[in-house]
């Protein structure tokens, strides 16, 4: 086990029990008797903690892979346009609302979000997929075009989401959409864990398959191809891996930004800095970050709970600014 894995696994082992105890109702260690305490733990805190770990791990791994692929420490999986597409799918489910049969109602949101993520993945693969082969003459279209395709997709999904909000069928739907877009883990259950955990785990597995190819990209696209990297295969692994991790996260928790951007920076100094060394520790560190942030928003003495997505953006945006300053000084 590498040093980075060890550090963040140990941190996670400390944070998980702490997060189970923390909340509006504090639970004393050892006070696990029957009754409300057990109910709070088993039905509220435990699924919430597992979900935080799952989503954080997915976003952390996706961020590490994304930064490796774009060869840029300021990249975020949100750039791929998959998160906004998943959010659009979720918003569509609010919009359809009453049209969905009651038996399906509980599943419609995550399902629609996953469909949105899937459509985003397909669109990216269609736009950027063919140009990454050398047949076009290797004029450098590959990764740059991919980024632009992701940005285009994100803008389009954002615009359609805004449209859906302005055309919301009623004020309740409107408020629900807006609240949901600022991701949170409030009132989540084992059902959400059952949706997100297998997809996220599969996604991290797919990203791990891309790890060595991402290492080769350290030397640039042409050198990577000369080392046997197949751009089409790498693109497919990235799109599927990020689609699964980010899509699953948005499906159960809404948009949670900045985790994928921040986490690889926390991990990088503990590794040899190659992308392959970052993916697993970034998953662990992402789990720590989201679990920690979610525990903090739970105990903050506010009238209503601070949304996790907002909290992480409040941390993430200044962090991004700090990264930019470091980059300006040539320390990144």
């Amino acid at each position, binding site marked *: 086990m590498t040093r980075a894995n060890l550090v963040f696994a140990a941190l996670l082992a400390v944070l998980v029990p702490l997060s189970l105890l923390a909340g509006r109702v504090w639970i004393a260690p050892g006070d696990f008797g029957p009754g409300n305490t057990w109910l709070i733990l088993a039905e509220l805190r435990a699924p919430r903690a597992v979900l935080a770990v799952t989503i954080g791990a997915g976003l952390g791994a996706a961020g590490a892979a994304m930064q*490796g692929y774009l*060869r*840029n420490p300021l990249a975020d999986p949100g750039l791929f346009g998959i998160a906004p597409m998943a959010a659009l799918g979720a918003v569509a489910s609010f919009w359809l609302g009453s049209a969905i049969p009651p038996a399906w109602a509980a599943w419609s949101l995550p399902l629609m979000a996953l469909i949105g993520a899937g459509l985003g993945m397909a669109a990216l693969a269609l736009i950027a997929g063919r140009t990454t082969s*050398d*047949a*076009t*003459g*290797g*004029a450098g279209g590959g990764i740059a075009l991919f980024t632009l395709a992701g940005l285009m997709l994100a803008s389009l999904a954002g615009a359609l989401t805004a449209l859906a909000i302005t055309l919301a069928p009623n004020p309740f739907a409107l408020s629900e959409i807006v609240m949901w877009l600022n991701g949170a883990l409030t009132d989540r259950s084992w059902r959400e864990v059952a949706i997100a955990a297998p997809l996220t785990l599969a996604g991290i597995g797919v990203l791990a398959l891309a790890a*060595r190819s991402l*290492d*080769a*990209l*350290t*030397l*640039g696209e*042409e*050198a990577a*191809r*000369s*080392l*046997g*990297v*197949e751009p089409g295969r790498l693109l497919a692994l990235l799109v599927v891996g990020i689609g699964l991790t980010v899509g699953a996260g948005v499906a159960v928790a809404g948009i949670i930004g900045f985790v994928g951007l921040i986490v690889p920076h926390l991990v990088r100094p503990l590794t*040899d*800095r*190659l*992308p392959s060394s970052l993916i697993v520790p970034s998953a662990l560190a992402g789990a720590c970050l989201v679990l920690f942030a979610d525990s903090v928003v739970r105990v903050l003495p506010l009238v209503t709970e601070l949304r996790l997505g907002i909290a992480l953006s409040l941390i993430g945006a200044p962090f991004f600014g700090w990264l930019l300053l470091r980059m300006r000084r040539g320390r990144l």
Partner: protein
Amino acid sequence: MTADAGLVAENLTLTRGGREVVRAVSAELVPGQITAITGPNGAGKSSLLLGLAGLLSPADGQVTLEGRALAALAPADRARALGYLPQSPDIAWDVAVENLVALGRLPWRDRGTAEVAAALAALDLEALRKRPVSRLSGGERARVLLARVLAGTPHWILADEPLAAIDLAHQFRLIAHLKACAAAGQGVVIVLHDLALAMNHADRVLVLKDGALLADGPPEIALAPAVIAQGWDTDVTWIGEPGAQALTFPAGGH
């Protein structure tokens, strides 16, 4: 030497961005030699090297390696046989020298500890093995990047301007290493802008102009003043002893 032993361009035509950059080039390159590709700016030197490395698919013709079409080789097999060194790539992450050199082992899917150590030793980089690449000088960096290629123990080394932007002493050290590789039986193909370096150190020179092969042969012939006049539109003469020649421009000439 038969064609089966070499890296052969057969009537190779390459396009980039819809434009023909290499036109119908045929050349049979043999291992154990330093082959220099030269020509004026925009002549298609780097494109030809990419084509020979199998990184640019032919629009027409083909490249074969030991009798097999490059396009038919699995990417990993091609990568083990052909080591490609791009022109001064920017290195995305500030990794340590030994980790960068070890990237050369990717096609082999092993750690290649012995090969990495040998490559570091060959280029005199042992003292720098733990140093982050951001703290290397230009010459050190060029050596590290070449060591990365050597660590893959390819049959062929295809390098794009490996001597550009490094000082004289480091140029000669790198040339000495490339000569040692050729002497050990590897094929060495380098794109060179500096005609004197090509004249003095290459065994064979390919001169390109507008994507077509203008001359191909030993440097005395392929870089004869008449060829240079045709390729570069410049009148020059060679002075000095064989192996240490320099170009001079006539006074008042363009």
